[in-house]
């Protein structure tokens, strides 16, 4: 009897302990903080793992789900009666994935190995006749999101992340040597260019447009510069080599904003990483580096902006609207999913940042834009974060949309000046 009572108490205490871990704060109680004059409104909740998002010229919102829900992996949210609230939601597409984009009358969406498109007839996607634009892209689980963006010249760009940390012989084993040359670079670790309007393309039909990028989830074509921008997720586990005190190590390597200014640009992975404290691409320890030696990394292209390590930039969007104040125009918003590889220090990220641009270059340092998504201070594990920002889109009225793939929330951010 005594035993049963003890077990009973143990169960109660255990349940409350784990509930504390999982339910730090109710999602609706989380307050998103914005600069003065901006307001935020939740337009969708509990939608599933909402990855990237695109908004059509009529205001319809399309969201790609990481995995299908009730067999459907794309959501279409509509405000049918124009009262400012979503009142008509449908879904289609039987595959999970990350990428979604709208261009020239088509909706493009990606699985983890292919890109499809749907013709928009009077803003209604022809869900019965998806066209396969590209198939057969590498998917080995790790870094398998296929982000997409389109230029103004009939091309679509697809990220193919490397299924590896630093191309070691034994993935993620501290001290394991790197493969040299890294064979993964032939099939991944870069961004490939395909024709946006040609069906049935295979991996081999693509052009390796940028290489030496470990993984990118945030990808956007900047129409002001006419160049591709990609947010690199830097390598993990540098702190295990103890080159610096932990407080420095967890900031390395930088998460990078990369500009691909010409086909074939090389950003150095897996041989190099960006040490933002000295402003140089340096050799990775798997290739004989000590976090300072430059060596073969001398000719590798540098980022246009560096961010603290492991924050996981999952979306980048160049703002072209008129609703937000002048300083935001042509600048870049970046959604940070939040880190997991910063132990023994706390995890960081879980916010949307902004980088001002002038004449095609960053005109100042990055700054916080929307914060508080984690719903708490001192996040020591990513599961403690209530929300994890993942996708960004601009509405036809110049509003900014943010998705979250932890609880499936979507916010619309407006500038009201109040």
């Amino acid at each position: 009897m005594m035993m049963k009572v003890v077990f009973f108490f143990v169960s109660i205490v255990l349940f409350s302990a784990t509930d504390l871990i999982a339910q730090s704060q109710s999602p609706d109680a989380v307050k998103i903080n914005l600069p003065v004059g901006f307001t935020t409104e939740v337009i969708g909740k509990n939608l599933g793992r909402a990855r990237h998002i695109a908004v059509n010229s009529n205001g319809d919102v399309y969201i790609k789900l990481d995995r299908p829900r009730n067999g459907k992996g794309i959501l279409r949210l509509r405000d049918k009666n124009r009262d400012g609230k979503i009142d008509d939601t449908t879904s289609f597409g039987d595959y999970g994935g990350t990428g979604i984009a709208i261009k020239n009358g088509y909706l493009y969406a990606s699985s983890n190995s292919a890109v499809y498109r749907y013709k928009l007839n009077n803003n209604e996607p022809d869900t019965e006749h998806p066209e396969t634009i590209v198939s057969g892209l590498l998917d080995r689980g790790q870094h398998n999101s296929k982000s997409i963006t389109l230029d103004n010249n009939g091309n679509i760009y697809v990220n193919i992340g490397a299924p590896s940390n630093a191309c070691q012989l034994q993935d993620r084993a501290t001290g394991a040597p790197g493969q040299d040359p890294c064979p993964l670079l032939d099939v991944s670790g870069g961004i490939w260019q395909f024709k946006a309007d040609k069906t049935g393309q295979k991996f081999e039909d693509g052009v390796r447009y940028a290489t030496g990028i470990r993984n990118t989830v945030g990808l956007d074509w900047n129409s002001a510069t006419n160049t591709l921008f990609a947010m690199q997720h830097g390598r993990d586990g540098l702190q295990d080599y103890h080159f610096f005190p932990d407080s420095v190590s967890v900031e390395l390597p930088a998460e990078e904003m990369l500009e691909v200014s010409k086909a074939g640009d090389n950003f150095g992975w897996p041989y190099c990483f960006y040490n933002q404290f000295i402003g140089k691409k340096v050799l990775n320890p798997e290739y004989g580096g000590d976090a300072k030696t430059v060596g073969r990394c001398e000719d590798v292209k540098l980022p246009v902006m560096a961010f603290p390590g492991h924050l996981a930039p999952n979306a980048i969007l160049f703002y072209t609207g008129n609703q937000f104040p002048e300083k935001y125009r042509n600048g870049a918003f970046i959604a940070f999913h939040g880190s997991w590889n910063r132990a023994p220090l706390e995890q960081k990220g879980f916010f949307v940042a902004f980088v001002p641009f002038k004449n095609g270059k960053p005109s100042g340092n990055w700054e916080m834009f929307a914060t508080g998504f984690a719903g708490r201070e001192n996040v020591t594990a990513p599961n403690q974060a209530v929300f994890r920002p993942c996708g960004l889109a601009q509405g036809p009225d110049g509003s900014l949309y943010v998705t979250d793939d932890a609880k499936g929330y979507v916010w619309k951010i407006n500038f009201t000046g109040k």
Partner: protein
Amino acid sequence: MRVFVFVWLLIPCLVKAQAKKPAGTTSKTASSSANTLKNSITRGHAVYTQYCLTCHQADGSGVPNLNPPLIRTKWTLGSKTVLIEQVLKGSSGKVEIDGETFNNSMPPLASLTDQQIADVLTYVRNNFGNKASIVTPAEVKAVKAKTK
């Protein structure tokens, strides 16, 4: 609070470990086996912090899509042989737990001693809301011999 939870957590394990002791093994007093478990968990915590925490996280909750959680899963509470093999051999990608997929690779940790592996698994099986039998160095040794 954490200490409180921890103490409550230990009680049934100790009782269970003691009750489950098969007949014929050398007899130990309750306090010495309690001491053994407590020491094993203490040592296991240190091993966890050094080799496991970065990926599986301080609270054992893992990372969505990447690193599996250790909280009350069929892996952590299930077959000790499977668990020991996981530590010895690691794995690469696509582990499924309760309908969730985890895609990161785990490097083998075969360089750890039998004692370290036993300690860290005992720690994991008796922390993060878990409650399961201890893992002994002899069990690790037996699995090592079999998988060689």
